[in-house]
């Protein structure tokens, strides 16, 4: 018992130095002004950016829902395939993730540009060019594309443990496909769903590079505004920290709210 505790020490030290201390610094910066005096001005100044914050949350929610809708059947199909096909499909899913995230987003830019590949294809049939980039749809597409594997993988790892006989039993007892999903598959994969939602929602809500590249600066998200406070022209780390803090608190509460509902359903079961 003691030995195993000792093994956790490196991790605890790591977390202390690289997570707890920086978090403390964020709180400290958010609560002080440039002279180091305590103030709440930064939090109040944050209100100006509320519409961006809501837009970020909205985009992240939409992206999460789309990911869930796409990932649920995909994960189910993978989990029902035979062992060899399963690992092939998972590898295929992972391959894009081996390429740098920035490069993949650049690729989408090349595809979606007014002069890009997709519009050129439409051009052959005399259609378009359609405005595919620099709008909110492109930003959400970027989020879904980049974070979809984070939804599929936890769903798959839960679904692969659902015994086929449970599905068969439901079918034997006369359950149709809709009831099979709502009464059997959804409740049983709840842990995977909640992990997946967190894994997609959190990076989506704080992303800045996707909105910069695919949104063309016309759909700034809270991540862009925070980044601007640290390395952009509006250099103000105190305001930036306040934004990061508010965002963190909101995400934490939203996650805890969600988890409450999630575990409640388990109680009902």
């Amino acid at each position, binding site marked *: 018992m003691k030995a195993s505790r000792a093994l956790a020490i490196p991790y605890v030290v790591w977390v202390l130095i690289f997570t707890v201390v920086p978090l403390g610094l964020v709180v400290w910066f958010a609560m002080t002004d440039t002279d180091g005096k305590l103030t709440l001005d930064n939090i*109040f100044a944050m209100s100006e950016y*509320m519409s961006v914050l809501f837009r970020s949350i909205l985009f992240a929610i939409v992206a999460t829902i789309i990911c869930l809708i796409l990932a649920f059947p995909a994960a189910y199909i993978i989990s029902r395939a035979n062992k060899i096909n399963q690992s092939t499909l998972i590898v295929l899913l992972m391959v894009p993730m081996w390429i740098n995230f920035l490069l993949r987003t650049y690729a989408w*830019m090349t595809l979606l540009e007014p002069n890009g590949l997709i519009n050129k294809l439409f051009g052959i049939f005399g259609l378009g060019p359609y405005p595919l980039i620099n709008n909110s749809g492109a930003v959400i597409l970027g989020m879904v594309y980049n974070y979809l594997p984070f939804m599929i993988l936890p769903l798959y790892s839960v679904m692969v443990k659902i015994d086929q006989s449970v599905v068969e039993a439901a079918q034997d007892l006369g359950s149709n496909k809709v009831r099979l999903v709502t009464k059997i598959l959804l409740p049983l994969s709840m842990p995977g769903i909640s992990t997946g939602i967190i894994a997609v929602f959190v990076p989506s809500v704080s992303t800045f590079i996707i909105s910069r590249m695919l949104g063309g600066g016309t759909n700034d998200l809270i991540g862009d505004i925070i980044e601007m406070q640290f390395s*952009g*022209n509006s*250099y103000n780390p105190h305001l930036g920290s306040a934004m990061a803090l508010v965002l963190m608190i909101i995400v934490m*509460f939203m996650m805890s709210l969600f988890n409450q509902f999630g575990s409640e359903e388990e109680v009902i079961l």
Partner: protein
Amino acid sequence: MKKLLSLLIAAAMLMGLSGCGDSASAEDEKREPTEEILESFGMDPELFSDYDYGRFYGKELTINVANWGEYLSMNDDEILDVNEVFEALTGITVNYKTYASNETLYSKLLSGGATYDIVIPSDYMISKMINEGMLRKLDFGNIPNIANIMPSFINPQYDPTNEYSVPYLWGMVCIIYNTKMVDGEIDSWSALWDENYAGDILMFNNPRDAFGIAQAYLGYSLNTEDFGELENCADLLREQKEIVQGYVMDEIFDKMEGGSAAIAPYYVGDAVTMCADNPDLEFVIPKEGTNWFVDAICVPTTADSEHIEAAEAYINFLCEPEIAFANCDYVGYSTPVTQAYELLDDEAKADERRYPSDEFLSEHTEVFINISEPANAYMQELWTGLKVGESNVWFVPLFLAALIAATIFVNVYRARKKKRDF
């Protein structure tokens, strides 16, 4: 006695010999003559100053240089590797790092996270850093090549006494446009507000540059601190927002070269590069005037005191004609070094957009300097308002309170429910 004498002589000779040996080995360590080093890089020793670069040899010094990305001739077999020449000449190791914005550099210097001996910020950032005591006064005794700098770059607005900085590269903000997508020629900032090109116009994604364009268009000073004028600029930019395809910075390269946008503002040096890649592109200095920017070499106060002299030698080195030429040739921006300008081909020299006359610079352009904190903050606020829209001050506290209340409610509800269940 004789024996003793001969022994002494022998000893003396031996010492002499060994002395000789010492000096010989010292000479081995000693670098080759400057001419040979320069010739080995294919450079012309005639064009090089007789500055004593050899005095650092064998001291094993390292200097930390921070520069913009792609802003120094290096990393390509075809061209002169400037840092390599400096290392061969001085024996000093150059630890070269890059940054993406003036503000990144500023925050790195301020937080003390990185120690640099040489930095190359832009005009307004230099005046900000001077005001905040972040730059060290240079010893121009170690930088005799300051004499190579064109007179119009001495005592600039951002460093009025010219004690802190030596100009490195410069340029103006221009309009770059695609001749296939635009009818006729463009000569005015009004093109960026032309509704015929709605959806094909790109704009700078930072307040200082974006406001700079509106200020130039409206005929204001680019360093105005008048709130009314700033509001007028914001109104103008808001009007433009309807027809702008996107607010971008580096992405302008891809979008303009690929023909995805028709008109964009950008820096002349990069416009030269873009036009070379895509012959459909053309750039112009708008008739209303524009921003003249200068990036200059400085030594921060946080620099290691043992490195200062080496850093100053590096500054002097960057002002050597052939080195300055290599840099401006590679980067595409304009050089302030007279002899490097002489080395350029006639086409570049005659290009008014790259090398405008002194009269043009003084009458039609303005350098950004650091504006006062309230004016800067107001500009940021207007820019944010433009980009994200306004919202109520009580939004955040109320929203947070609502979230906390909801969480408490759910927790209490759950706890009660659990009690009932068990």
